[in-house]
């Protein structure tokens, strides 16, 4: 088979406003490949719920976004054998009010570059009409002492670090809002 080197990457385009009946088709009666439920019953780890709102530069809700999350299991492992019911992958469409949630287990710490340890986190993609390429961010947790040594948080200016840290509130729910633009804009990464 030929492995002629391709001309280059296939460029990204916006997800547009009309993806739901294919990617998050619950309301259309379609089968879903992934949902807000990342961990099935019996998966080891602390059950957590993360809630948030996606907001634009005017502070208006973004009601046509899709959030995807990717994470390690409670032991900090990806694709661990024998961890049935845990894919590590979540997908949520925002509501008309811009809201989303993810129910999962708290991930474990995991190795980072150069012998460092990464604090528990979820890796996040944000897709929406008006975004020509997905935005990459991370969700950390405000009750993790390891945040202070996390090698990725250390790359973020101190005054913006808080945008990456979910805050535990009433009922133990973690709050993580995503501000696409403007004051308190969420930190997005060049991955």
């Amino acid at each position: 088979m030929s492995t002629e080197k391709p001309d280059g990457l296939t460029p990204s385009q916006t997800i547009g406003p009309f993806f739901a009946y294919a990617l998050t088709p619950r309301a259309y009666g379609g089968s879903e490949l992934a949902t807000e439920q990342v961990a099935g019953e019996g998966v080891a780890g602390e059950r957590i719920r993360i809630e948030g709102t996606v907001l634009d530069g005017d502070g208006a809700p973004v009601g046509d976004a899709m959030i995807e999350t990717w994470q390690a299991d409670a032991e900090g492992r990806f694709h661990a054998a024998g961890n049935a019911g845990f894919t590590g992958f979540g997908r949520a469409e925002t509501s008309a009010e811009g809201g989303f949630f993810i129910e999962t287990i708290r991930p474990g710490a995991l190795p980072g570059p150069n012998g460092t340890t990464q604090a528990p986190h979820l890796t996040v993609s944000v897709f929406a009409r008006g975004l020509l390429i997905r935005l990459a961010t991370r969700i950390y947790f405000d009750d993790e002492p390891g945040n202070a040594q996390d090698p990725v948080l250390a790359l973020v200016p101190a005054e913006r670090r808080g945008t990456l840290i979910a805050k535990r509130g009433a009922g133990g729910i973690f709050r993580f809002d995503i501000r696409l633009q403007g004051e308190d804009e969420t930190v997005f990464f060049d991955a």
Partner: protein
Amino acid sequence: MSLIYPRSGLKAHPLNNSPDYRSTLKRAPSQPLILLPHTLSETTGPVFGHVAVSEIDSDLTRAHAGEPLGERIIVTGRVLDEDGRPVPNTLIEIWQANAAGRYVHVRDQHPAPLDPNFTGAGRAVTDADGRYRFVTIKPGAYPWRNHHNAWRPAHIHFSLFGPSFLSRVITQMYFPGDPLFRFDPIFQSITDERARNRLVSRFDIETTEPEWALAYQFDIVLRGRDATPTEEPHEH
């Protein structure tokens, strides 16, 4: 095979800051992106090969009792990495408007008819050679309110995962020779002409089936290169 993800290819992508596409104005981040090292969190990703994607999921003309209206087409291609190696067992999700340019989505207000025999959503998993195949109908162009007399060129939305978080991409496939290309700020947001043209499928007479359907070919190149490329023999 262990993959690395150089950043050099990323220049093919559009910038979120593309003001001719007006929805970007309040949604594109204004702060600079922060360079992220590629850790285990980024070099891994979900695997869907085990998920039952049935054969009928890739035939959008068979989702209902009757046949959809419009021009039946076959869309095939290969998913490759940056070295040109096939990406096997990777999930592709597609969605599109019907032949009249109308989406099933509840918020699509275009006054064109829905087709009771067409939803417009499909899935496939690439084979060992990275190949995929969909059967569908050619989507219509549709108006949008970005500017006066704004029409999207006919397109099929494609969502792909590849081997990791870093290879994840959502894009759109276009059809050759569309007169709307030069007026479309989404297509034109890709500033490099060669990169832009990689989103235009190729009419494929070889795959076209007599008395049945035209075929278009669309290869997709995802991020990722072999970390240990075999040394090419030197010519002397």
